[in-house]
């Protein structure tokens, strides 16, 4: 039996792994970024990323610590629907595939999602969007840094703040040195590590425990986990679906990749990435169903994955889990740091503070902003539990649900609906976020995204129907064009 009182990995081995992978990522980041000369190189990796790297980076960024740790937790709490529901997060990537193609066609010189909103809807909507987008981005950054500290502590007994500081510092360093090229290059290796590690643990669990023992023990001890009519699980499925679509559609993490991928690559990369991501939560989640058969006592549901891996594989399992988790954390943190620093550089610094900033100036500014973002994230994650809103990972993520879901329709309408009303887009985000947050506090966390998306849709459709505003798509091609206030 394994318990959380004893870390599953000896601290000395964990430090060795942390040091080895930290050096690998930083050296690789420096090597990949050594030819970056302009802001465009640094932010968009030369705008010609091929299919292999593009598919891998889409997958790696969407495989977060949540995928590797929460998928088993959901399987343990919500059963078969928990892991299947989580895998539907792939729909966000798949549905973004046609949007990525449209974005690249309409904005061949675009840099950020903020560029699109500014040119398409004007300055007021742009500012509303920046608030929504930056709240989400910062929330995700802090939650990832917190996840790093919590997981490294739980797996190896390393102090929360020390583990969090190490992983954040490593990601800041290689993003700083190599920009998006470093992020995408390391993402490729991280994807291979994460998927191979998860599949390895799943095959060994199947081999050592077997489906018959898993099914028999679940029927005896937790039959609801095998139920196909588990209401809470089915509700989770829809909430997760909307949340995932909102996260991907609005976030600059995905837009910057759409601008960075070569022509005709974006559609295929997001489609393949989504289809190949689909089985990962099932593979990572399934092992939790083996806990009754293995007789494992699970003191904390979010640690069920590592506990099963350690039980089935011993020290090797613990090492594999540690490497997979470290890779999953780094692959998301680096992407967020790069995309958020781009958004701040282009849309806040250049857009609001220094409009005449040259390419070279932006190149330096984006590096300073990566460091500042890292410091801010470190501060917020250091005071986990002491700042009211920065309570737990789940609370923080679900809190941002209303914001991201309210941005889905302004983005979709902006890309495809010629008459979409710009003021309507702003108010759909304001009212969607506001009413979504109200429902978060009045009803529960699980309705925030749902209500936010519904209100936003209603406002967008109603305002455009009452006051249509025709738009010339050609204006999107000039990313520096002046726009009305």
């Amino acid at each position, binding site marked *: 039996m394994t318990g959380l009182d004893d870390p599953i990995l000896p601290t000395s081995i964990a430090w060795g792994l942390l040091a080895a992978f930290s050096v690998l990522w930083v050296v690789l980041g420096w090597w990949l970024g050594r030819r970056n000369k302009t802001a465009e190189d640094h932010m968009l990796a030369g705008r010609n990323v091929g299919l292999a790297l593009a598919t891998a980076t889409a997958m790696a960024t969407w495989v977060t610590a949540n995928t590797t740790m929460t998928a088993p937790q959901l399987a343990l709490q919500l059963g*078969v629907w928990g892991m299947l529901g989580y895998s539907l997060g792939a729909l966000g990537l798949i549905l973004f595939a046609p949007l990525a193609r449209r974005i690249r066609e309409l904005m061949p010189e675009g840099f950020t999602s903020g560029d699109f909103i500014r040119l398409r809807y004007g300055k007021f909507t742009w500012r509303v969007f920046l608030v929504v987008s930056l709240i989400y981005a910062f929330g995700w950054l802090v939650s990832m840094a917190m996840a790093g500290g919590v997981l490294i502590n739980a797996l190896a007994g390393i102090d929360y703040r020390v583990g969090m500081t190490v992983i954040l510092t490593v990601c800041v360093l290689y993003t700083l040195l190599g920009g998006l090229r470093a992020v995408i290059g390391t993402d490729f290796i991280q994807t291979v590590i994460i998927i191979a590690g998860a*599949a390895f643990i799943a095959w060994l669990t*199947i081999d050592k425990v077997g489906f018959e023992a898993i099914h028999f023990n679940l029927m005896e001890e937790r039959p609801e986990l*095998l139920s196909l009519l588990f209401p809470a699980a089915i509700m989770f499925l829809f909430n997760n679906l909307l949340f995932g679509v909102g996260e991907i559609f609005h976030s600059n993490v995905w837009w910057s990749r759409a601008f960075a991928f070569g022509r005709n690559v974006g559609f295929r990369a997001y489609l393949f990435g989504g289809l190949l991501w689909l089985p990962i939560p099932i593979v990572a989640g399934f092992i939790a169903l083996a806990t009754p058969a293995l007789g494992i006592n699970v003191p904390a549901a979010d640690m069920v994955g590592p506990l099963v891996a350690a039980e089935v594989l011993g020290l090797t399992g613990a090492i594999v889990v540690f490497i997979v988790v470290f890779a999953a954390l780094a692959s998301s943190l680096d992407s967020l740091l790069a995309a958020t620093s781009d958004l701040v550089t282009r849309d806040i610094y250049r857009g609001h503070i220094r409009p005449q900033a040259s390419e070279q100036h932006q190149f330096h500014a984006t590096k300073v902003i990566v460091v500042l973002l890292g410091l801010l994230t470190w501060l917020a994650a250091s005071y986990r539990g002491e700042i009211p809103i920065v309570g737990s990972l789940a609370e923080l993520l679900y809190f941002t649900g209303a914001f991201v879901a309210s941005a889905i329709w302004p983005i979709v309408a902006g890309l495809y609906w010629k008459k979409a009303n710009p003021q309507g887009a702003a108010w759909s985000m304001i009212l969607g976020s506001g009413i979504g947050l109200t429902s978060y506090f009045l009803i529960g966390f699980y309705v925030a995204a749902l209500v936010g998306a519904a209100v936003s849709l209603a406002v967008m459709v109603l305002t455009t129907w009452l006051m249509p505003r025709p738009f010339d798509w050609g204006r999107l091609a000039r990313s520096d064009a002046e726009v009305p206030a």
Partner: protein
Amino acid sequence: MTISITALSVIVVLATSVATLTPILLIALFIRDWKKGCLW
């Protein structure tokens, strides 16, 4: 209504097989892009 052993094993084995093949597919795509000079 519970899921049968067969259905559970089919879903999990299928998912794990796809996950096992994914790194191989990605590496093959990487080599193809590299040979064609369109990695970046």
